[in-house]
């Protein structure tokens, strides 16, 4: 299991992120060195006794030749890293991620039938997956700092990124292009699992929701279908087939609610259902005004049971 920071490009969890980190170190160290050199020269110039210097040599050497060599070397290095990052030649994407204000819809194309979820991707360790990135509204940017560079999601286009993790673990991602009021609460998680576990998880995601196991959960499902929930949300295996909000077929197994606003669990779900506009102002989900306390608990418990 990967230990350490879950959202840091200084703690790379993949070969691609390691390449970016290495490029970063050259940049920080190199620019630091140049800064020290220039400041030292300026101080020397200011405080030393006046004397004649070879002006032309300093201007041509320090102002043209030195930066030209340094920048050309950096350009070659960065282009090399860019090529390495673009991965294998384009093939059918394994996962589609669609940016929305302000959450991520995730669809699995391979081996999963209709596996659709939100704000969470799971990937097999050590196997690069190709992800197609698009958007439903404005420009977003898909960024998991510990695993890959950032790639924009641009209206009318589909961009691609290859994501791979060296070790099992949880990595946090974040929208990296300002996209409106709740840009800061547009987070997601990438969970890297051993291949076997990943396959089992994907098969579960593709399956319809389980039937409620007891009367209380049944009461929760009835509340879901009776209230306006189904107008926006899908729970596969029930009559709920809305498409405006996240697919909730297996919402109980996810790590967060509201794209990172709350953690998991029935209590967090109840809070979110009761007051989404206070927890994340401006998101599309209206507050619930008609549920009794008991129905709210039943509904949250039902959703939490959908693993």
């Amino acid at each position, binding site marked *: 299991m990967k230990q350490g920071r879950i959202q840091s490009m200084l703690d790379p969890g993949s070969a691609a992120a390691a390449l970016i980190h290495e490029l970063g170190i050259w940049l920080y160290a190199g620019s630091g060195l140049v800064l020290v050199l220039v400041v030292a020269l300026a101080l020397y110039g200011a405080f030393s006794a006046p004397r004649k210097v070879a002006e032309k040599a300093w201007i041509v050497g320090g102002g043209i030749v030195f930066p030209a060599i340094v920048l050309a070397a950096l350009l070659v290095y960065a282009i090399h890293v860019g090529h390495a990052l673009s991965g294998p030649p384009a093939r059918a994407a394994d996962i589609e991620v669609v940016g929305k204000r302000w959450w991520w819809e995730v669809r699995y194309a391979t081996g999963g039938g209709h596996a659709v979820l939100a704000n969470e991707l799971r990937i097999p360790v050590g196997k690069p997956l190709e992800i197609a990135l698009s958007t439903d509204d404005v420009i977003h940017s898909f960024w998991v700092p510990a695993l890959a560079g950032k790639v924009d999601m641009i209206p009318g286009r589909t961009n691609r990124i290859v994501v791979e993790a060296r070790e099992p673990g949880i990595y946090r991602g974040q929208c990296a292009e300002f996209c409106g009021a709740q840009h800061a609460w547009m987070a997601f998680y990438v969970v890297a699992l051993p291949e076997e576990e990943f396959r089992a998880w994907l098969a579960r995601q593709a399956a319809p929701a389980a039937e409620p196991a007891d009367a209380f959960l049944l009461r929760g499902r009835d509340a879901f279908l009776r209230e306006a929930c189904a107008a926006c949300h899908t729970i596969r295996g029930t009559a709920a087939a809305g498409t405006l909000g996240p697919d909730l077929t297996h919402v109980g197994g996810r790590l967060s609610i509201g794209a990172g606003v*709350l*953690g998991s*669990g*029935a*209590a*967090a779900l*109840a*809070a*979110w259902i*009761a*007051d989404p506009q*206070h*927890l994340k102002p401006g998101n599309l989900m209206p507050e619930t005004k008609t549920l*009794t*306390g*008991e129905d*709210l*608990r039943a509904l*949250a*418990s039902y959703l939490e049971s959908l693993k």
Partner: protein
Amino acid sequence: MLLTALAALAAVTMCGCADREPLRPAPGDPAAGRVAIQRLQCGACHAIPGVTGARGQVGPPLDAYGRRVYIAGKLPQDPALLARWIADAPSLAPGTAMPKIEMTAAEARDMVAYLYRLR
């Protein structure tokens, strides 16, 4: 003079609620209670002084909870009863919107200690 005033102001603002004497005696560790409140996301529904991000409006605000006479307007204020309410409110009031929440008995006790120090 100014420095003294600033120091006094800093002392007042930096003094965590958990450092004070509780209004009612309660077993449990208030500092651990605050950690548990954070971990269990109580702030999604309740506004709780001293807990980062706890600004919820689903349930009642818990400021000055140490002075609160009734638990949820229903039950007499008592540390053991409040601990039970925090962990499993529906068992005491079936109509409540507050869910049963998985936690250890120690966590519930520590949260009571924290709440009783809010004055």
